[in-house]
């Protein structure tokens, strides 16, 4: 475990710094790149936590699809979507909101975690079995969700299309 501690700390630090980059970048394209780094650092953290499959999922779905989608959208923005500098009231709001949340979560999370149970055999098969046995209903319920997302994206995009 100790051998893991240093890379883990590094991974967490990268994740936090890149997240900071996302929220501080005035150019959305910079933000998207920071989001990519953030996503990759999360991939690393998953690997360190011995969650291999989900690490690959994150890499494919998040870094590969979602972040790229963000980059596409940013490319479509007029003038790169650059925004004005944040006013002081906005900064205060961010500090207060983030701080309050951190305080509340900190108060909750300051408990002793149970020692990790022995790790199960890794591999794809157990996860597949978990998805199809205890989680079969949630797994199936992703179908209507994705359907809504697809129809939604198409209809919103065609909302302003000129009728022929």
């Amino acid at each position, binding site marked *: 475990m100790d051998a893991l501690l240093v890379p883990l700390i590094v991974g967490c630090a990268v994740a936090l710094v890149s997240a900071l980059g996302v929220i501080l970048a005035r150019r959305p394209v910079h933000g998207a790149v920071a989001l990519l780094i953030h996503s990759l650092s999360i991939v690393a953290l998953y690997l360190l936590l011995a969650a291999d499959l989900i690490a690959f999922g994150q890499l494919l779905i998040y870094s590969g699809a979602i972040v790229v989608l963000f980059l596409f959208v940013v490319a479509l923005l007029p003038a790169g979507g650059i925004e004005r500098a944040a006013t002081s009231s*906005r900064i205060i*709001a961010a500090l*207060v*909101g983030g701080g*309050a*949340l951190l*305080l*509340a*979560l900190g*108060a*909750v999370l300051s408990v002793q975690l149970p020692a990790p149970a022995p790790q199960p055999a890794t591999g794809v098969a157990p996860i597949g079995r978990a998805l199809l046995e205890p989680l079969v209903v949630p797994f199936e319920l992703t179908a209507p969700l994705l359907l809504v997302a697809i129809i939604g994206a198409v209809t919103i995009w065609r909302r302003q299309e000129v009728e022929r």
Partner: protein
Amino acid sequence: MSALLPWTWVLTLPGLVLTAAGVGRRPGIASIWGPLVMLLAALAWFATGAVPGDVVIPNWAPFLPDGSLHLRADALAALMLAILGFVSFFVYVYSLSYMEGDPGQRRFFCYLDFFVAAMALLVLGGTLGVLLVGWAGVGLASFLLISFWRDRPGTLRAGLDALAANMLGDAALLLAAVIVPSGCGDLTTLGTPRCTAGLGGAALLAWLLLIAAAAKSAQGPLYFWIPTAMAGPTPVSALIHAATMVAAGVYLLVRTHAVLELAPGVMLVTAWLGTLTMLGGGIVSLFQRNFKRGLAYSTISQLGYMFAAAGLAAPFASIFHLFTHAFFKALLFLAAGVAIHATGGEEDLARLGGLRRRLPVSFGTFLVGALALIGFPATSGGFSKDAIIDAGLRENPLIGYLLLAGALVTGLYIGRLLFGVYFGPERTHPHHEPALQVWPLVPLAIMAVVAGYFEWPGGGLSRALTPVLGAIEPLRAFSATGLAAAVLGLAGIGLSWPIVQSAPGATPAEVGTGWADALGQAGYSLSRGLAGLQTGLLTRYALASLLGVAVILLLAARL
């Protein structure tokens, strides 16, 4: 008959449907039969032996302490139904002429039908839950009828004022209906030890009932809505804001007098509230410029008498005065309506005058009503008011003498209206009195004179009501107090002549309504401020939501 009486509240509903559907060449003609049948049903019930009968459908609203659909037919309900049927029938007939040509005439009759149904349900209700249905229904009907002429300024505001006052009463009654222990809610057993065992006991229940009654009957500081309610058509003022609905508060106190008697403090408050409202309403009436408002304050004052009686452990005197008052006050309003209608809607006392020659029937019946109002011996008011003053002198002499003094005030204000409108120089040119408006006045005038003889000398009314109200002291007719009250009333009328001569129509006065206005203003300002927080700024929304989540998380998970 006892099986049918509980269902008399549906009698006006066919009329409502027919009128709304456009049946009848004269709009509203299909509606007038419901009240007549209601009156006949109530009379038939008395005639066939007055056998009490209840309709109970248990578990109708199972989430209430007493959730049965309970309709009670007893002497008190039948008496109220008879009053309601009698007055409303003649008001309907009168309205056929009064509302003629109004584009909303059909709607007017539909509202009236709805009102009568709700009022009948109110008096037939056997539990707090059923009572509430009628209670809120009459409030709604009152709002719709006050705001009936939407093209006239201020009618919506007047209706909302009435709603606001009613709302407080509804709140009190609603609370009373949900806080009684399980299985309670029957109006006749509300005073039993089991039912007053809840939090707050009998005192809390009595307070809630008193607040509800005071709001409905415009007592004390809650009177503010009645004067503005006069914006509605005059037949409405006669039926709802004089004879029946405003008396529902008195009815409630009488119906639940057992609870009131368990809370001596609340009794005393009720008696004083009634007495002071009686005096205050009478005095304020003296300063009104508007004819109908002058009468409205008179109603407040007379309801004060009834409240005082209820607070003086004399429920029969209270309900007896309710009975006689319904006739003579409806009569006064309808007679006033003839004058207002004939002068083309003139209600300003400064512009009315000398109408007795052109409107003899209106004058004659108004005079009869005025005499009954001051308690002239041998008229209906004479009997009922003496009963209340006697109760006062017996239970609490100070209140008794104040009630006696009230007779003088009564004479003063009604004399002022009588002389101001029907005597003096003629300032308008009224057209004739329509027959349909005049002849409903006659039976009301007759009842205003003879209603007292239902009790004296035979004691018929008190005998019928004994099963409901308990033992009733016999009426002492033509007593010294009665004589004194009559003399004071006549003196008041006499003294009012110089007042009319010197100051025709003083400045309009509304006393003690400032708190309601201030409360309303504060509510609306707060409302605008609160709506201003909904800024449409995503950042603000997100900040507020996140702070909310953080606070709830801290409180809930750490406590």
